[in-house]
């Protein structure tokens, strides 16, 4: 039995969720190969070869795979997918985009966003925004799977010495032309990689007030998130959204400021190790999941916290 992990990468390096996907693959059991499909992605291929527990790295380096164009990447993965018992990638916007195409091309079901591996054909996954966990068993010969980025402890990024093999296959469907991207330049850690996150909700009242959180975040080395209410109200952009329809995070410390704790938001952060809630409404549902709750006006409490952190 061998498992193909499709890497999340930026051509230069391997992104952290790939290490989680490899960890999930180890739980399924089998020889693990990693596919790096990109354009000018040699460095990412070299980095993948160092991941602990990987036996082989396949590098498909062609302009057709630039920016992870779903139609082309899916055609490539489906072409080689028949050689494996499992095809695995992370539940990132890239993985969510191409992987169901792979499953359809292979005529197998996809098991999305798994949070646990019971056996090589049985997996746990959250449904209804994490309000229930389904245990599902696949009868397909190839299991196509996306892995929740917070559900497994990542394997080490180094220590391995896998062989690197070039894949010459070029799958260019010509269906999609990539135009441009507006990627937010982050001075802080990425939400899905941060060990501390401070998030604001509707209680922040406006976008300018997020500056209060920025000061604390800088002192803690934290990422800044937001609830869907804050995004819907136009305070901050959608890429900051934590929740069922945003990013799923599980940092060591999650500080929820002015967030009531809608189910939708809790679905995105309740696996955090330590949760702090600061809210003036003592009945806010966020306090039911918080390890430490502070009933206070955030406009007083956050500056005070900022001062205490020096």
């Amino acid at each position: 039995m061998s498992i193909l992990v499709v890497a999340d990468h930026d051509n230069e390096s391997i992104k952290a969720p790939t290490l989680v996907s490899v960890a999930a693959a180890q739980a399924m059991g089998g020889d693990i190969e990693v596919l790096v499909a990109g354009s000018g992605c040699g460095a990412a291929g070299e980095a993948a070869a160092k991941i602990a527990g990987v036996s082989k790295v396949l590098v498909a380096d062609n302009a057709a795979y630039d920016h992870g164009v779903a139609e082309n990447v899916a055609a490539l993965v489906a072409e080689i997918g028949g050689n494996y018992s499992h095809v695995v990638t992370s539940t990132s916007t890239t993985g969510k985009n191409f992987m169901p195409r792979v499953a359809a091309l292979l005529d197998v079901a996809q098991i999305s966003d798994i949070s646990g591996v019971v056996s090589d054909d049985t997996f746990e996954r959250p449904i209804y925004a994490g309000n229930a966990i389904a245990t599902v068993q696949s009868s397909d010969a190839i299991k196509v799977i996306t892995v929740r980025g917070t559900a497994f402890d990542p394997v080490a990024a180094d220590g391995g010495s896998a062989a690197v093999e070039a894949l010459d296959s070029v799958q260019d469907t010509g269906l999609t032309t990539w135009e441009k991207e507006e990627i937010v330049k982050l001075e802080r850690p990425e939400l899905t990689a941060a060990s501390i996150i401070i998030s604001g909700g509707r209680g922040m009242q406006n976008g300018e007030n997020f500056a209060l959180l920025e000061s604390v975040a800088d002192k803690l080395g934290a990422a800044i998130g937001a609830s869907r209410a804050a995004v819907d109200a136009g305070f901050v952009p959608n890429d900051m959204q934590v929740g069922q329809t945003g990013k799923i995070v599980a940092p060591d410390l999650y500080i929820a400021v002015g967030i009531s704790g809608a189910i939708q938001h809790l679905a995105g952060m309740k696996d955090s190790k330590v949760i702090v809630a600061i809210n003036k409404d003592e009945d806010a549902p966020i306090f039911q999941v918080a390890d430490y709750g502070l009933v206070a006006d955030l406009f007083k409490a956050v500056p005070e916290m900022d001062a205490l952190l020096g």
Partner: protein
Amino acid sequence: MKVLVAAKRVVDYNVNIRVLSDNSGVDLNNVKMSVNPFDEIAIEEAVRLKEAGTATEVVVVSVGASNCQEQIRTALALGADRGILVETEEDMQPLAIAKVLKAVVDKEEPALVIAGKQAIDGDNSQVGQMLAALGGMAQATFASEVQLGDGSATVTREVDGGLETITVKLPAVVTTDLRLNEPRYASLPNIMKAKKKPIDTYTPADLGVDVTPRLKTLKVTPPAEREAGIIVETVEELVDKLKNEAKVIS
């Protein structure tokens, strides 16, 4: 051009779902059902295309039990022209739904298919992409802006780091993200008018589609509960606990 919209009947987003005590699933008895919120955004986008004169006809399709008619009627009241129900009592999984939709696409030949990026019950986020693959079509998932050109669509997509813009050849499948538009409410006159709009009904067998489930749900359980924490009185106490008790900041 014709636009096909896929809409799913799901538990209303305001409902607190309850896992059944025999762990066979979640309790759907006497629970309010609605159009999947992301599919409402898809309906709205299609209706706006018609109002702008770009789309000539908006067809809404739903796959499931006969009561999915209610959600098709909602879409018709919001401005869709006619409905298609592919009726089945089978547990419809994403691959089977995509195959049914592929058969409907073959029949209807729309230039554009719009669907929600995920349904809020299964949270799978698969059907749009699978349909595009089965039909050999381009896909633009998680759309926050759609502009139609001549034989193509330029779509801004919500990706992890920000936004990405792609141009896809038509016919294509677009899946909607939250910020694409804000759906309207149906007016009473439009709800009345919708009752007269036609709904065609097929079965998966009529369409020649095998919808046998590939996945077996062994059990459904409630998620692990977090233990209740404590309420601290002051910011000093909070910072002290984080430093010395939880040891998550230094």
